[in-house]
């Protein structure tokens, strides 16, 4: 007889195998090893299933109350429906049975309070995935002062990645900000800064080994802050994680101490018909301060698939008087004066094209 198939191995482990399979396994070292391996896997699965714990005391109480109040009667057999019979079960139990059920319910309720409610009051460290995400959202939205944020950004499909991003944003005036991205070589790739009081916007872009710096004065009205947009997107994704049915929450020891890891289960594809949908998201959140230490998400945004991951490098509130929002041109950079356009992208493109045209003439 040739060696056993995986299905036959499974049936042996499950004690459902044929006699022929058993005899072969007893004589075949290779199959016996496969059986041992499959037994270990099934044991791990059993541990995973059975670690779910005992019945909550509250469920015991609920069931007893339901039994005590369930209507019943000598009605015909119920066929698969959830309709209960009209005769009260309490009557069927008799006076002693009813008292016993009542006493057991009280005892179980007391047990719930002693073992479940009171420890929770004294131990607020047991948080749900949603509570962790909620606190993280609060941390995002309640930052004050001038915040410096440095993180690593990886975008699926983007050449030159991962990028190091520096944010500087005045939380009192979110239109006042500076964002710069750097490649793995440490060189500036893109940057934008905006000062709504001085009505000035500066952008830098690195193309073919050369950096173009475009200054635009008298901007009509500040465009939406890029850091604000990034934060809004992050908040949206976190809110979706809160709303997802099955996020998992685990804890780990990270370089910065204990961390919560909240993760949504992977689904095959995101719904591209909606503005934003997730196929997977994972957030690593500091247990002490609820700051997001790392974040990754994939799905569809504006009907395009996306996958990004972010790893926090530094986050701090800096002295507002010494915070430098400006983008300084370095020697060799091409500095251009642009005109206000409807958006930053048009401004920088128009300025570069104009500059190139003038140079050609």
């Amino acid at each position, binding site marked *: 007889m040739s060696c056993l198939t995986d299905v036959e191995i499974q049936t042996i*482990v499950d004690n459902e195998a044929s006699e022929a399979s058993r005899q072969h396994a007893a004589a075949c070292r290779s199959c016996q090893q496969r059986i041992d391996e499959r037994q270990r896997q099934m044991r791990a*699965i059993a541990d995973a299933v059975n670690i779910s714990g005992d019945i909550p005391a509250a469920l015991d109480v609920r069931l007893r109350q339901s*039994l005590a109040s369930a209507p019943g009667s000598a009605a015909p057999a119920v066929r698969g429906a959830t309709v209960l019979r009209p005769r009260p079960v309490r009557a069927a139990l008799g006076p002693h049975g009813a008292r016993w059920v009542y006493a057991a319910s009280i005892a179980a309720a007391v047990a719930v309070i002693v073992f479940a409610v009171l420890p929770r009051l004294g131990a607020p460290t047991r948080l749900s995935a949603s509570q962790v995400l909620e606190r993280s959202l609060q941390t995002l939205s309640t930052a004050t002062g001038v915040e410096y944020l440095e993180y690593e950004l990886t975008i699926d499909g983007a050449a030159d990645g991962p990028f190091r991003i520096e944010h500087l944003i005045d939380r009192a005036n979110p239109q006042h900000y500076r964002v710069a991205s750097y490649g793995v070589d440490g060189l500036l790739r893109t940057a934008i800064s905006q000062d709504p009081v001085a009505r000035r916007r500066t952008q830098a872009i690195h193309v073919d080994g050369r950096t173009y710096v475009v200054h635009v004065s008298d901007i009509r009205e500040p465009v939406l802050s890029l850091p604000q947009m990034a934060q809004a997107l992050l908040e949206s994704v976190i809110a979706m994680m809160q709303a997802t049915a099955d996020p998992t929450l685990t804890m780990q020891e990270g370089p910065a101490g204990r961390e919560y890891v909240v993760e949504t289960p992977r689904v095959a594809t995101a719904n591209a018909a909606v503005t934003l949908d997730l196929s997977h998201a994972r957030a690593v959140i500091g247990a002490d301060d609820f700051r997001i230490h790392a974040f990754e998400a994939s799905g569809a945004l504006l009907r395009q698939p996306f996958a990004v991951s972010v790893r926090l490098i530094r986050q701090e509130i800096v002295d507002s008087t010494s915070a430098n929002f400006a983008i300084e041109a370095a020697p060799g950079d091409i500095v251009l004066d642009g005109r206000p356009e409807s958006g930053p992208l048009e401004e920088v493109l128009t300025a570069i094209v104009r500059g190139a045209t003038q140079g050609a003439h």
Partner: protein
Amino acid sequence: MTTIANAWMTTLERADAPNVAAGKPADDVLRLFHEHGGAIYRFCRSTLRSESDAEDVVQDTFLKLLQHLESRGDRSNLRSWLFTVAANGCRDRGRWRSRWLPWRAEDDRRVAAPAQDQDDIRSARRALRALAPRDRVLLSLRASGLSYREIATATGIRENSVGRLLARAVDRWKKARKS
């Protein structure tokens, strides 16, 4: 030959054999709840991945047991009957559950896994959660000690197919654990 199936089966087999003698239905329900409620709850919890949903299904299952006993239903294999009803309850609940749920913090009872949970158990659970519902149900029923015949009854699949489907489910679980 020693298999882990024996270890799984012991508790429930002992509890279920001999089959339940007819007593007062409500008393029988409470007794069966104490004997099998834990296994049913763990099965539902593993299948539904939600404590509150699992509690609802367990409660419904034992209320249906009350109806079953009061209507003098078959008492020959109540363990299998309970798992069948629970599996159907889980499936029904899975049908209406949408992917996105309205969220209220006070209702959220999903809690962090205890820090002392071993990594291998954690990864095993994670892999289990990543499986398709049918694979999760099959593995959970097997882990709950049901025979192939009982699994077939509970899930509505042919008994001859149970071993093959279980083997495939384990393979997918292995892949999910590695990824």
